[in-house]
């Protein structure tokens, strides 16, 4: 093979990629934080015995888990404005799409984690006169969190990778910058190799964290 690598174009424009990384990380954090926040009430509704709560929550979770992220994102970017007449900014559309998807997965983690906490703990709290919100905040969630942590970390990893999809709706995150740079420099090999490595070093620490959490959980089990 006679191809000569030439990374000079990539490195002379590395600041563009770094701006992209900032968007990627921002998108990652915003979507994850909101995904968790929406996932908790959703998971509670999913685990509820009341049909009026259980059925809509189940439908929501199943729809977002059984359609491709890219389709969800395109729907939010192109279809949602048609319906509401509200032209959402790209960043809002992208983070909303990723957030809703993440919330569906987080809901399932919350539901499983809350159900795994024994009935006796709920009863002990109630017998002391605790209202349900206090019970959840003080007794149930603190116990469930460590059990749910590996699943949330895995979700964070999946979300980190999904942020690249936002490039399709022209959000100037890392992957989008890479596509622009490729069309300017005609150096796809160098650009995408560097970009893949940047993603790897950004996401891999979270994976290492998940390994550590899983090992810790196995030890305590």
């Amino acid at each position, binding site marked *: 093979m006679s191809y000569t690598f030439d990374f000079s174009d990539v490195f002379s424009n590395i600041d563009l990629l770094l701006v992209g990384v900032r968007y990627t990380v921002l998108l990652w954090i915003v979507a994850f934080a909101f995904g968790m926040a929406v996932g908790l009430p959703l998971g509670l509704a999913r685990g509820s015995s009341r049909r009026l709560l259980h059925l809509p929550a189940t439908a929501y979770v199943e729809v977002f888990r059984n359609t491709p992220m890219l389709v969800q994102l395109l729907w939010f970017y192109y279809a949602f404005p048609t319906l509401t007449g509200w032209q959402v900014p790209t960043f809002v559309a992208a983070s909303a799409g990723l957030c809703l998807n993440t919330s569906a997965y987080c809901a399932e983690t919350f539901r499983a984690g809350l159900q795994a906490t024994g009935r006796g703990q709920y009863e002990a709290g109630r017998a002391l006169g605790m*209202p349900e919100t*206090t019970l959840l905040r003080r007794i149930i969630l603190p116990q469930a969190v460590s059990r749910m942590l590996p699943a949330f970390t895995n979700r964070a990893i999946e979300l980190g990778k999904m942020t690249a999809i936002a490039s399709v709706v022209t959000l100037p995150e890392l992957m989008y910058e890479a596509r622009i740079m490729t069309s300017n420099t005609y150096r796809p090999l160098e650009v995408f190799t560097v970009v893949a490595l940047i993603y790897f070093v950004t996401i891999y620490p979270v994976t290492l964290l998940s390994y550590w959490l899983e090992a810790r959980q196995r030890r305590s089990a």
Partner: protein
Amino acid sequence: MGVVVRAEKLHKTFGTLEVLKGVDLDVQEGERIAILGKSGSGKSTFLRCLNFMEMPSSGRVYFDGAPVGTSQAELCRLRINVGMVFQSLNLFPHMTAMGNVMEALVSVKGMTKAQARAIASEQLGRVDMLSKSESYPINLSGGQQQRVAIARALAMEPRVLLLDEPTSSLDPELVGEVLKVINALAARKMTMVLVTHELGFAYHFASRVIFLHDGRILEQGTPDQVLKNPAEKRTQEFLTGFNEFSF
């Protein structure tokens, strides 16, 4: 002496199984009631209906003469006044013994931590657990855990304490220390309703014994009446094989 808790025609069904078939009970201030019966007689379910751990299918519960509704606020108010000790202990594993007793004082009664700590120390002292107050439940024996659970319930200053087979999940050698604590409460005139299999203990503990059979109260009276001279055939059958010397 007034009626603290009154149960009126309590029914409870699980699916198609009718566990309680109309149970009435007045718990008088200062009374110590022991509820006996075979497993499956509905005795635990009845006790758990008194503080709505189980929702009765029909019937009413009165506290201080007023009927208790099923809104969350009313249930919480009732449960502050009607404490419970569980068979399965149910300490909060992520909190120390002290934390367990302080928790509801702070998060339900709104006390400051200092106030809660003072009360919790006093209650832990009464069950002889003050020296272990900073231990987590996992490092306590079953008997020690149950003593903390009793302190946790008493810290709320309930008017009535419900005890649901408080010793039956404990190793035999740990039963004594818990019964000693319950006896000490009896000496202080605490109003208590106890579900138990320990007939010997029930005999000495109770001011009134209730025998539940198939979801109904079959017989009640003083320990001497029910345990030594039972009128009903079912009660006699239940007591056969039980050695009189152990009273």
